[in-house]
């Protein structure tokens, strides 16, 4: 530090004064001359202030020079997703021709979904502790009882027989202990060998430290699991040495090791490296921390909501979290705090030392070009093993893409994705496949089947009646094609569109022909023209989708008011988006099929179902008529 050098000449000037004053005064009387001390003290104070003033005001105005590179690199990191999402709004404010726009209650109330899980009001975020017990699927979630923005977090709770028709229950846990006074945050459930449930969750303590706590059902005979008991010895885990007090959260479901112990992993970071810590336990009360991490990836930042589970290489059903063996691959997933993206990778788990190695390190967990569950808005996701039907099910938090003023005005914020089954793609072996749970088909009402051949540059209306609660399954084939330009498409559906197409959301395929004549297909969702509103995010999402030889291009789209979930090639590439039309609402919502290719003709065979509401409502005695079966 240069500053200490510059101080010496100053203090040495005053040393004679201080030395002479201390030397001339005999020890017994040193306390008496307080006036001298005061003068010296205030003298130093003035000098200290003067020096600080000089140093703080001789700063470079611009940041040119050696620091530039570092600044540019860190600005790139700082820019991230968020800047892009607001750029267009700031440009709008300079647009003198722009329409002034205000949300009214008609537009806002249309936005509520009919069959996606959401509480009656206020803010929701991460899914917590999903499980199946005594005939009911349980869903817990981060909830703010007081506002339509994040804060004051408690555990909301709901149950369902079929993952679709949800019934709201009272809060499962609230911040009533010192170790979760500042928030009952995300956690996961584990079934013990005797079928009992333990819940591990993160608490934000009264001193803002992130700790892990243990809870379990107060009454295991209550199929609704209404009440939860927090372990008297909480917290069971505190941030270990070298880990920040605020970088330690979201414990996973535990799995059995070959030693017969339980093992969990918790995401964190060390500087900019995202990591996953490993702990072993026998009783969920005391833990041994591993010295080695499950995995780490540099430059990925904090890993939130880590998930770790096996998938079968050959079979299409789910596996219990403890399953291991030669038929199994293991998935490591993490939610990247930096980018709000959920990434996963496929790899090999080594039980002997609790480590995991990705199959392909170039697309490791958190690498921007790596795999994602969903290429749209989808975060803090969590899977659980559904022992009732032998499936692994994925929950994902879908936040809003609108302004907080609109959320406050409409009184709510966020929905959950439709639960999806997750399996390894046994054909490619390089990605997972997700698909909305079959139970959603129970909402299908009347359907219409279509077979349309549309030439290049055409848009055709698809008459299905109301088009804001629909399920579309389509397969497409192209013929002809721009061999010169090398692109086929885009072609697909225009959903949540108004008659004049002034508002529309496009879900489509885009096929390119490379120099090697190999076709590469992209599955995309374009919300850039989805609304006239100027205060929402209107992104274009998309990703490469593997298409194997002989396969037609298939897509499925769930449209449910302000949420669109698109599944390409049977769920190889999924895109969820939030959309807020101002005109294409209620009876004015239409559906179109389009082909923007310059040469190719598209033949689409598809079916569109009207979807019923799931009528999600608070649990009442009437909902519990049937005696629930035990597991």
């Amino acid at each position, binding site marked *: 530090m240069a500053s200490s050098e510059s101080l010496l000449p100053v203090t040495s000037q005053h040393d004679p004064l201080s030395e002479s004053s201390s030397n001339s005064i005999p020890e017994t009387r040193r306390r008496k001359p307080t006036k001298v001390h005061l003068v010296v003290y205030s003298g130093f104070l003035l000098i200290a202030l003067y020096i600080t003033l000089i140093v703080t005001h001789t700063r470079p105005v611009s940041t040119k020079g050696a620091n530039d590179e570092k600044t540019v690199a860190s600005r790139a990191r700082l820019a991230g997703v968020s800047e892009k999402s607001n750029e267009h*709004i700031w440009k709008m404010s300079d647009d*003198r021709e722009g329409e002034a726009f205000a949300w009214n209650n008609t537009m806002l109330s249309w936005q509520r979904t009919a069959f996606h899980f959401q509480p009656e009001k206020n803010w929701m975020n991460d899914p917590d502790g999903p499980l199946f017990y005594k005939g009911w699927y349980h869903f817990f979630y981060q909830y703010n009882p007081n506002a339509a923005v994040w804060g004051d977090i408690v555990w909301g709770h709901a149950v369902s027989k079929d993952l679709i028709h949800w019934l709201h229950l009272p809060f499962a846990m609230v911040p009533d202990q010192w170790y979760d006074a500042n928030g009952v945050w995300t956690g996961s459930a584990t079934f013990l060998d005797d079928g009992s449930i333990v819940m591990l969750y993160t608490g934000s303590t009264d001193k803002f430290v992130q700790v892990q706590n243990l809870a379990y059902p107060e009454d295991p005979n209550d199929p609704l699991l209404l009440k939860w008991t927090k372990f008297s010895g909480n917290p069971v885990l505190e941030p270990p040495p070298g880990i920040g007090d605020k970088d330690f959260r979201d414990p996973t479901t535990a799995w059995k090791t070959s030693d017969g112990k339980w093992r969990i992993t918790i995401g964190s970071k060390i500087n900019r490296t995202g990591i996953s810590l490993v702990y072993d336990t026998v009783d969920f009360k005391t833990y041994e921390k591993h010295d080695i991490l499950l995995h780490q990836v540099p430059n990925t930042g904090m890993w939130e909501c880590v998930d770790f589970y096996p998938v079968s290489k050959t079979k299409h059903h789910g596996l219990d979290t403890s399953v291991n063996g030669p038929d199994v691959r293991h998935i490591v997933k993490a939610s990247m705090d930096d980018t709000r993206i959920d990434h996963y990778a496929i790899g090999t788990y080594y039980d002997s030392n609790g480590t995991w190695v990705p199959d392909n390190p170039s697309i490791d967990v958190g690498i921007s070009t790596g795999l994602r569950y969903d290429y749209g808005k989808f975060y803090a996701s969590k899977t659980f093993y559904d022992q009732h039907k032998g499936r692994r099910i994925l929950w994902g938090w879908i936040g809003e893409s609108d302004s*907080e003023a609109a959320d*406050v005005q409409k009184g709510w914020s966020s929905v959950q994705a439709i639960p999806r089954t997750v399996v390894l793609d046994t054909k490619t072996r390089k990605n997972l496949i997700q698909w909305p749970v079959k139970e959603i088909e129970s909402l299908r009402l009347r359907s219409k089947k279509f077979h349309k051949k549309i030439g290049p540059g055409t848009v055709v209306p698809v008459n299905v009646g109301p088009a804001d609660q629909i399920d579309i399954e389509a397969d497409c084939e192209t013929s002809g094609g721009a061999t010169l330009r090398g692109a086929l498409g885009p072609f697909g559906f225009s959903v949540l569109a108004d008659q004049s197409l002034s508002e529309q959301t496009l879900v489509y395929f885009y096929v390119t022909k490379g120099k090697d004549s190999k076709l590469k297909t992209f599955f995309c969702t374009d919300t850039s023209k989805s609304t006239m509103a100027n205060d929402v995010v209107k992104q274009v999402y998309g990703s490469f989708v593997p298409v194997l030889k002989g396969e037609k291009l298939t897509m499925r789209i769930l449209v449910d008011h302000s949420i669109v979930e698109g599944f390409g090639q049977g769920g190889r590439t999924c895109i969820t988006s939030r959309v807020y039309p101002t005109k294409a609402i209620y009876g004015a919502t239409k559906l179109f099929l389009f082909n923007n290719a310059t040469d190719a003709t598209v033949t689409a065979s598809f079916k569109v179902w009207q979807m019923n509401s799931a009528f999600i409502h608070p649990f009442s005695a009437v909902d519990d008529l049937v005696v629930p079966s035990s597991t």
Partner: protein
Amino acid sequence: MKMVVVMMIMMVMAMVSEANMIEQTCKETPDFNLCVSLLDSDPRGSSADTSGLALILVDKIKGLATKTLKEINTLYKKRPELKQALDECSRRYNTILKADVPEAIEAISKGVPKFGEDGVIDAGVEAAVCEGDFKGKSPLTSLTKSMQKVSNVARAIVRMLL
């Protein structure tokens, strides 16, 4: 006496290193000069860590929103023809005060900065929307532009916590 000297030196060093802390932090934001002037002028700036600096910026957002709401209120009488836009601005700026700021304070204090980022970004969005509602004839331009700039700086600092 020597203890006093040592303490004085340490105090000056701390003040200078904190001054460097503000400078280093502000270099990583889109508006160095604005950032420095906001943090320097605040007494808490001299001893704050990155979280603390972020919270100071959130406080500036709060202050600016309050000031803007007062201005909106006086405009109702001075410029009654702008009522509709003023209503919408009022709604937007109340969101900043009642939703964005508390969310950001809680999130930054508790170590889940991404929700803090949401809050400070939204402050800029609400200001931009309010400005746009006047279709080019805004009486609030300098205030809304300030909010957007402060939001930009605040967001950059909150991102450092991620």
